[in-house]
């Protein structure tokens, strides 16, 4: 059976036609245009590629980007979104994993796309959006894939130093959106305020909920996030009812003293996720918007955006520990403990902390071209010897509280959530070691001040290291505190004494 997502695009075009589906960057796209543009993109792709192949899409923060993504999908292929404003070295790494035969770029990013293409054919978005579509070809392509076929590949920080491409099927995304919308109940009267960059997993709800429900999405200009008055004026101008934001994004206006002069007037529901939100700043939102429903969401990209949610029942105080709640429809959660010696897994006892594991149709297909990494975390359920069943080991720890809700306890490994982004400290270190003169280093996270630290030894200046990071790595992975040491502290076994470095941060 072909994907329901194709039905959403067609149906929303016939029901909502001339209404705006996406607005942003001073431009709008209607439901009818989304159907037409995506069919044109699909035609271009289908004439050049087999089904189930990757197509890199390097377009900006504007309403045509979702049309490119959905066009790739309608050709039976999957899209690899790329942020053309990222440093070239990072983009090269991603292209190295994806190796797409086709690429779509808007005019603004054409030069960087050409520099990276490595010979793959590039379409200029502006040239193909209005090209005539071959309806028969598009229908045939849509019918040739199933909901198990890959829909997109989103890149995330990898501890080996190379980003991992998380490959997700149509079915998994549909499962997430159904689960989410059962809770937030959007319809054509709703307006979503998009915060997440469009190449991020968090943007899937902002792009696909409109075609599913008839709601509209407004892409908020990036620099308004540091300008609370401008941000809230935009929310009011578009009568935004719904926010699905990173916790970090929600904290910013509260940190900067927002709500003093302007407040959002039309909000109905706010969903936040990505990291543990600060009670202090959440409380500012709650005090100013007493009638809004607040929902805490949890989940990794590998389980398609978010797997559990908790609807807040009252205002938080300084000592509130917010649960991450219960699984959405289509998601199941297991808590497993592992015996260090035997390596055997067992179900966590009542109230005991275990690793949060996810199963169900929501799971990603795996990492693209990384079978070993896939096999480490997408494993056969060790508690079920009767039939094969895959679970995903999140690496997050949690326990079920007396109230029956799931609570989050941080990571098993050295992955951190920094300003809403997932960062492997090992990847920061791997990059720092590529800088000439850096002989040894360790990266740590100062959670209280939200700073990535890099301690290093060697013959190089902190300034030069910063410049190199800025040139090659995304901004959120650049250490804000770089400390030169004459020598790194070591443990007797030769490993770096992380505890000692940790104490220096405090």
């Amino acid at each position: 059976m072909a994907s329901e997502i194709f039905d959403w695009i067609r149906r929303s075009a016939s029901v909502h036609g001339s209404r705006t589906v996406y607005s942003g960057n001073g431009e709008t796209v209607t439901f009818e245009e989304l159907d037409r543009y995506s069919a044109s993109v699909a035609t271009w792709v289908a004439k050049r590629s087999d089904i189930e192949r990757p197509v890199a899409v390097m377009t900006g923060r504007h309403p045509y980007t979702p049309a490119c993504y959905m066009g790739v999908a309608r050709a039976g292929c999957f899209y690899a979104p790329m942020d053309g404003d990222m440093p070239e070295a990072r983009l090269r790494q991603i292209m190295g994993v994806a190796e797409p035969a086709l690429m779509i770029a808007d005019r603004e990013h054409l030069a960087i796309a050409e520099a990276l293409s490595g010979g793959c054919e590039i379409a200029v978005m502006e040239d193909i959006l209005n090209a005539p579509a071959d309806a028969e070809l598009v229908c045939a392509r849509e019918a040739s894939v199933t909901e198990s076929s890959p829909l997109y590949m989103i890149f995330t920080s990898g501890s080996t130093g190379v980003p991992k491409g998380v490959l997700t099927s149509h079915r998994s995304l549909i499962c997430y959106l159904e689960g989410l919308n059962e809770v937030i109940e959007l319809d054509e009267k709703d307006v979503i305020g998009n915060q997440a960059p469009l190449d991020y997993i968090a943007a899937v709800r902002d792009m696909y909920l409109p075609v599913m429900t008839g709601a509209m999405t407004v892409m908020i200009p990036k620099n308004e996030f540091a300008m609370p008055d401008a941000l809230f004026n935009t929310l009011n101008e578009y009568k935004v009812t719904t926010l699905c934001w990173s916790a970090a994004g929600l904290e910013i206006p509260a940190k900067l003293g927002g709500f003093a002069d302007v407040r959002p007037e039309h909000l109905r529901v706010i969903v936040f996720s990505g990291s543990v939100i600060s009670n202090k700043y959440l409380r500012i939102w709650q005090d100013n918007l007493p009638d809004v429903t607040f929902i805490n969401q949890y989940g990794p990209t590998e389980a398609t955006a978010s797997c559990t949610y908790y609807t807040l029942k009252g205002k938080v105080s300084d000592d509130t520990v917010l649960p991450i709640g219960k699984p959405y429809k289509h998601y199941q959660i297991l808590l497993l403990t592992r015996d260090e010696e035997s390596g055997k897994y067992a179900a966590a006892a009542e109230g005991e902390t275990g690793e949060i594991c996810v199963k169900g149709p929501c799971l990603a297909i795996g990492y693209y071209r990384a079978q070993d990494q896939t096999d480490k975390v997408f494993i056969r359920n060790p508690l079920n010897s009767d039939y094969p069943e895959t679970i995903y080991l999140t690496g997050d720890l949690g326990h079920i509280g007396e109230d029956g809700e799931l609570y989050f306890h941080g990571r098993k490994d050295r992955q951190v959530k920094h300003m809403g982004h997932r960062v492997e400290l090992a990847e920061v270190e791997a990059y720092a070691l590529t800088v000439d003169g850096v002989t040894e280093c360790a990266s740590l996270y100062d959670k209280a001040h939200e700073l990535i630290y890099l301690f290093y030894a060697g013959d190089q200046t902190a300034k030069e290291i910063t410049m190199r990071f800025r040139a090659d790595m995304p901004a959120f992975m650049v250490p804000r505190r770089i400390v030169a040491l004459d020598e790194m502290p070591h443990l007797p076994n030769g490993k770096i004494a992380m505890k000692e470095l940790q104490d220096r941060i405090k």
Partner: protein
Amino acid sequence: MEELMGILKDLRPDVDFENEKALVTDGILDSFDIISLVSTLNDEFDITIRPANLVPENFDSAEAMYALIEKLQDEE
């Protein structure tokens, strides 16, 4: 001005604060930079930057930031 330049260079050693005139408008400083900058400026210059002051015109250049600091110091 010198103190401000020092703070800016610490924050973003890769940016040419002498010559850049569209730091916010062109997205050179992101929202995390602004947050960190606002709290440092509040502490170092003993001022309170309010949401109404958070407009690109006040942060697009080092001179504009300096003018804002002076204005807020006069008001205190």
